[in-house]
């Protein structure tokens, strides 16, 4: 039964229909978002077109699939797409946003013919060995996976940026219209951002978030470097228990600490102060940092440090002159990871800060989440909070990824 299905034609049907549908959904929706036209992509027509295009390829044996055959296949996709959608591939008359329609149709035809070719170039008609069948099937689904993952990851970020450039009215009028409106010039386009900085004090929040995050990194390193060194290099009773319980500490959920800390900090007058946050943030990141650093220190050759001790350096001298210079990459990873935690922290900032003069960005953005503030302001605030950390991430990606893998059993 399975052997009967294991057929080249079945692969062509799967590949063609799948790629036709995906290309239409992705490109059709993108067309709608960019042009602002009320498009209704004809997914079924595109699936049929892709399927027939794939069958054209399969009509020839692999070595006969010349560029001419591929061109015929593409032509078939184009013709069927128009025929099956009654010349309305996006459910629109062709004179609505004609430029974008032409570009989109070309993209769809190009994508479908290319992916059909890339998936099926060595597929033969008729029964296939299980090995070959699976190989091609996996090729098809991998392509599908790439498109799906890219879309689900990128779409929210695209919506985030585009919404911040819109106005509430136009968003309600047509939620799919993400065309960029240049009529108000650059300042009109970035109106929300200007208002956030001028009226909502976001310049200040940006500064406070930076100060808090950098200070958290510095404090965390000051505490965790000596601690990690002691755990990884010195022998003392209780060492193994300690190095194991560090991980336990960092499984304690913040929500369990929030009530007692809220109560005590309120009575001490530390709630609603930046200093209060600067006590809590390092305390929650030190165990992680210590855990990450001790792992790295253990990997360093102890001989170098022993040589340093022999030459008359003190322990502190050894740490500063030998261990730290050798562990700069690890320090970078830890710093970036801690910076990210502090920058993105929400719970304590939300619970502890009431005074709009000392909001961090997270807290500031939450304060925009009200019915009196238009949505694009909220999105613009979110962009302001996101850009610095994503910029740092992309710039230092290698270190950041190391930090994430070393410490990010935490969430």
């Amino acid at each position, binding site marked *: 039964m399975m052997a009967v299905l294991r057929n080249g034609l079945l692969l062509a049907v799967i590949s063609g229909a799948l790629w036709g549908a995906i290309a239409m959904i992705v490109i059709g*929706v993108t067309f709608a978002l960019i042009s602002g036209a009320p498009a209704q*992509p004809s*997914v079924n027509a595109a699936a049929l077109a892709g399927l027939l295009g794939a069958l054209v390829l399969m009509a020839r044996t692999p070595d006969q699939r010349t560029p001419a055959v591929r061109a015929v296949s593409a032509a078939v996709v184009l013709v069927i797409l128009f025929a099956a959608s009654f010349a309305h591939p996006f459910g629109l008359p062709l004179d609505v946003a004609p430029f974008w329609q032409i570009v989109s149709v070309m993209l769809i035809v190009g994508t479908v013919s290319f992916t059909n070719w890339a998936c099926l170039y060595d597929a033969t008609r008729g029964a296939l060995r299980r090995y070959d069948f*699976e190989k091609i099937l996996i090729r098809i689904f*991998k392509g599908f*996976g790439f498109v799906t*993952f*890219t879309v689900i*990851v990128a779409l*929210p*970020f695209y*919506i*985030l940026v585009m919404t911040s450039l819109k106005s509430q009215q136009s968003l309600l009028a047509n*939620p799919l219209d993400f065309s960029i409106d240049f009529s108000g010039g650059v300042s009109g386009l970035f109106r929300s951002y200007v208002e956030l900085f001028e009226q909502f004090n976001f310049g200040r929040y940006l500064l406070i978030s930076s100060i808090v995050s950098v200070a958290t990194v510095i404090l965390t390193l*000051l*505490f965790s470097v*000596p601690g990690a*060194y*002691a*755990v990884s290099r010195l*022998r*003392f*009773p209780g060492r193994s228990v300690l190095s194991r319980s560090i991980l*336990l500490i960092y*499984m304690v*959920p*913040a*929500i*369990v*600490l929030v*009530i*007692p*800390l*809220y109560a005590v900090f309120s*009575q001490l007058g530390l709630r609603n102060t930046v200093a209060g946050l600067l*006590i*809590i943030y*390092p*305390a*929650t990141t030190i*165990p992680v940092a*210590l855990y990450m650093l001790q792992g790295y220190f253990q990997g360093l050759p102890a001989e170098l440090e022993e040589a340093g001790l022999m030459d008359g350096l003190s322990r502190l001298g050894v740490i500063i002159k030998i261990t730290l210079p050798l562990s700069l990459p690890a320090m970078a990873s830890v710093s970036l990871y801690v910076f990210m935690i502090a920058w993105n922290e*929400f*719970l304590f900032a939300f619970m502890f800060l009431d005074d709009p003069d000392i909001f961090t*960005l*997270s807290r500031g*953005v*939450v304060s925009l*989440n009200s019915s009196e503030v238009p*949505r694009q302001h909220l*999105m613009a605030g*979110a962009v302001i909070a*996101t850009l610095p*950390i*994503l910029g740092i991430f992309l710039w230092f990606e290698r270190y*950041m990824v190391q930090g*994430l*893998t070393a410490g*990010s059993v935490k*969430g």
Partner: protein
Amino acid sequence: MSSIETAVGPPKGVGPMQRREARLAYGMLAPTFLIVATIVLIPLIANFWISFKPVQLGDLRPPTPVASERVRGDATAAGDRIRIEYRLRNSSRERAITDVIMTDSWVDGLTPVKLDPRCAITGQNLRCDLGNIEGGFRERLKIEVTVDEAYLASKTNPKDSKPVMTGDSENILTNTELTLDNFRKVFEASEFWSVLKVTIYYTVFGTGGALVLGLFAALLMNQAFRGRALLRGLFLFPYVAPVIAVAFTWVVLLDPFSGALNAILQQMGAAGGPINFFGQREASFTLLGLEFTFPLALTTVIAFEAWRYFPLSFLFILARMQSISGDMYEAAEMDGATPLQQFWYLSLPQLAGILSVLFLLRFIWTFNKFDDIFLLTGGGAGTRTLTVDVYEQGFALANLGAGAAVAVVVFVVLFTFSIIYFRFSPKDEG
């Protein structure tokens, strides 16, 4: 013979070198230990304590005696009478304050006609011993005075100096009034068991979803191609971006009226009307003539969880995949194993260790998660988990004690998980 052997062997016991090393180690660990103890361990214990106390959010502000001063009447000549009035009250409606004393400076040239028996004037000071005052206490303490030339000449107003009130009140957090009411309230509430169910549902499926997505993403990326580094960076965005940004983006994207996703679905004919992804408790669909009902808002929140945290599983699984030697696959290839067979019989067993460690760790962290659900739904529409319930009880309903009791439940469940984890986790992974 034996005595020589013991002399040559390594020294037993603790020598001065080792003691010095241990002292140094403790010294280097002391700051860490101190701050972790203050901010993590002690609050953890304090949370247990608070869960047994009848504390409301408002009780955190200790009751304080408050006084304001007024001067009645106008003095134009010596011998005129004016009245100095102190309005006294207890800031708390319920709790008493003991040993309340008010002091104020007394202006020269004022002679009291009749002084309240609780008050005394010594030199330039007025001191009134008010004793104990009850909750909701309010009083006007009046002092009739006659003025003389010195007062009229000096032009000082008695109001210029503010009265100072002192008094002792019991600190609600440190007294020994204990109760089981908080736990009774938590366990007897009808929604508690549904909250627990939602928590488990959310934790299991959120963790599983993130793991499966991460596994797929790692399978895709476990091969060299152009633009791989770029794509890997993109795949990590959901985790690196601040939770407020991505959570609000999802809220805006899935909005029933102005959200892009609803608009897309409706325009493509996939949905009849707007779907309130975060606000609708249940949705149903028909498949093969059967009607299925599922919790819509909870499912959406789980989808967010999987979306936001798959990058972590992805990174770990990819790292593990890249450390698997290629020889094994070559041998399998020679023997004619198909790609799916290779995945099932070679890759998956190699990944089992990291997958189980990831599952347990992510399970714990998903269980602990508060921010995401709080920002997406605020715990409404059947998405309230235990952590959101802590906030709900402690802050939204202002009952700190009950909140702490829920937090105790969170901790106990978590502690059980951790023990299971440390007992059964493979030692070579993670």
